């Protein structure tokens, strides 16, 4: 597979790891947060912690849109799925996320709701054409990576004149979250030295989107691809920035990411979506201007307008340490519930839900080595 396998080369990985080892300054710790769940997953999946020098401490960020979706929104999706005539569709990741009372969309499905896993939102539009007497609601989640697809699907549904296609919009914005993560502290971001920036979010929004955060909090950011060599190279770049006390936004993933991102994708997003005043992120709390809603012009496709939903309260498990884990302030394995009451089969908190959540990644790939490390 061209442009994939080359970036998994074991010899090059060792060279890079050595280069990192040579680059780190003696006695210094580099606390680097990968914002993206995809990066967290890749780090564990390829066993990178075992390659890196002890001086590099990876912190796992909040960048998994499945994990940070509040319970209340999951409850509302389950409620929508139960309405007569509704087919609720979403990406596979969302279906087993528990809402209140540990209920998931998969359970609602088992109880009789028509819930379908789709590979693409396009398939939901097609379904709406095929089943005009059913209401097809797409439970749309994701960061800026996934948002353009939702925008295009809504535009397609409009062009087709569909009146039975709806989007339950839960698209989130990453720069706002990054800002909130750092701001929400008396000493902003004191526990983080630098960031590995999102790969595919950046593909859409560009590297420029991170300049403000980097400058305001004086943290270097390196946008990186999801392959192990990408990650290692980005770590090396961060170490070098930190050594030379720079705090630029650099782009390791420049084979795909442009400074200004994909303008066309941004245009489609701007055409269809507007900013919500605020949105309650799971684990991170309410963040202003951090999420998108459908513009009034597309109200007829907006599930929230078409199907009035009661406001709900999210009740989190009291023992769950997710807020600290999501901010990189606590190791997953340090949560008292980790692997005891909280497992991927029975997640109690945000970080255990998706395979890309920090706790899930540690559970699946790293819990034994990590124990040794503790």
């Amino acid at each position: 597979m061209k442009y994939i396998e080359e970036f998994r080369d074991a010899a090059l990985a060792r060279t890079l790891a050595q280069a990192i080892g040579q680059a780190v300054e003696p006695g210094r710790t580099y606390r680097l947060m990968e914002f993206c769940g995809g990066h967290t997953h890749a780090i564990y999946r390829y066993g990178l912690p075992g390659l890196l020098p002890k001086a590099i401490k990876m912190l796992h960020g909040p960048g998994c849109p499945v994990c940070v979706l509040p319970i209340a929104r999951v409850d509302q999706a389950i409620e929508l799925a139960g309405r007569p005539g509704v087919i609720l569709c979403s990406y596979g990741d969302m279906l087993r996320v528990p809402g209140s009372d540990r209920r998931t969309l998969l359970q609602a499905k088992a109880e009789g709701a028509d819930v379908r896993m789709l590979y693409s939102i396009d398939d939901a539009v097609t379904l709406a054409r095929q089943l005009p007497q059913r209401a097809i609601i797409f439970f749309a989640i994701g960061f800026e990576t996934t948002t353009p697809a939702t925008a295009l699907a809504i535009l397609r549904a409009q062009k087709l004149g569909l009146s039975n296609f709806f989007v339950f919009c839960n698209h989130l914005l990453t720069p706002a979250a990054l800002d909130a993560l750092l701001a929400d502290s008396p000493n902003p971001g004191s526990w983080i030295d630098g960031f590995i920036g999102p790969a595919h979010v950046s593909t859409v929004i560009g590297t420029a989107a991170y300049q403000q955060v980097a400058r305001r909090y004086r943290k270097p950011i390196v946008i990186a691809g999801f392959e192990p060599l990408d990650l290692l190279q980005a770590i090396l770049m961060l170490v070098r920035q930190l050594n030379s006390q720079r705090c630029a936004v650099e782009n390791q993933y420049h084979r795909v990411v442009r400074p200004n991102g994909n303008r066309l994708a941004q245009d489609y997003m701007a055409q269809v979506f507007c900013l919500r005043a605020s949105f309650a992120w799971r684990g991170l709390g309410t963040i202003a201007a951090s999420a998108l809603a459908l513009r009034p012009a597309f109200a007829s496709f907006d599930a929230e307008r078409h199907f009035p939903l009661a406001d709900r309260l999210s009740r989190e498990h009291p023992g769950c340490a997710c807020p600290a884990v999501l901010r990189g302030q606590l190791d997953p394995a340090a949560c008292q519930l980790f692997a005891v009451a909280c497992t991927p089969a029975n997640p109690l908190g945000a970080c255990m839900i998706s395979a890309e959540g920090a706790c899930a990644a540690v559970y699946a790939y790293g819990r034994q080595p990590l124990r040794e490390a503790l």
Partner: protein
Amino acid sequence: MCLAIPAQVCELLADDRARVRVGDVLKTVNIALVPQVRLGEFVIIHVGYALERLDPLAAEQTLALLHEASDLQPRRAESANDPNGQERTDEIH
């Protein structure tokens, strides 16, 4: 969730669609976000949509730099300290 992978465009279809290949696997995707894409080019695929074109020169640059560091012998003239910084061109040929 933000999983996306490079795939080569092997057939352009109607309605903003294209057939792409990853290794031996073929899939139809939406290319409305990369309308300028040409046959043979690589795109990044995410939830059935091509998000962006992949710049093969930039990819080669990255790899060349890594090999260079590995072989301790330059494969290209270039040998910047900062392997791929902000000054990099963002235009695809």
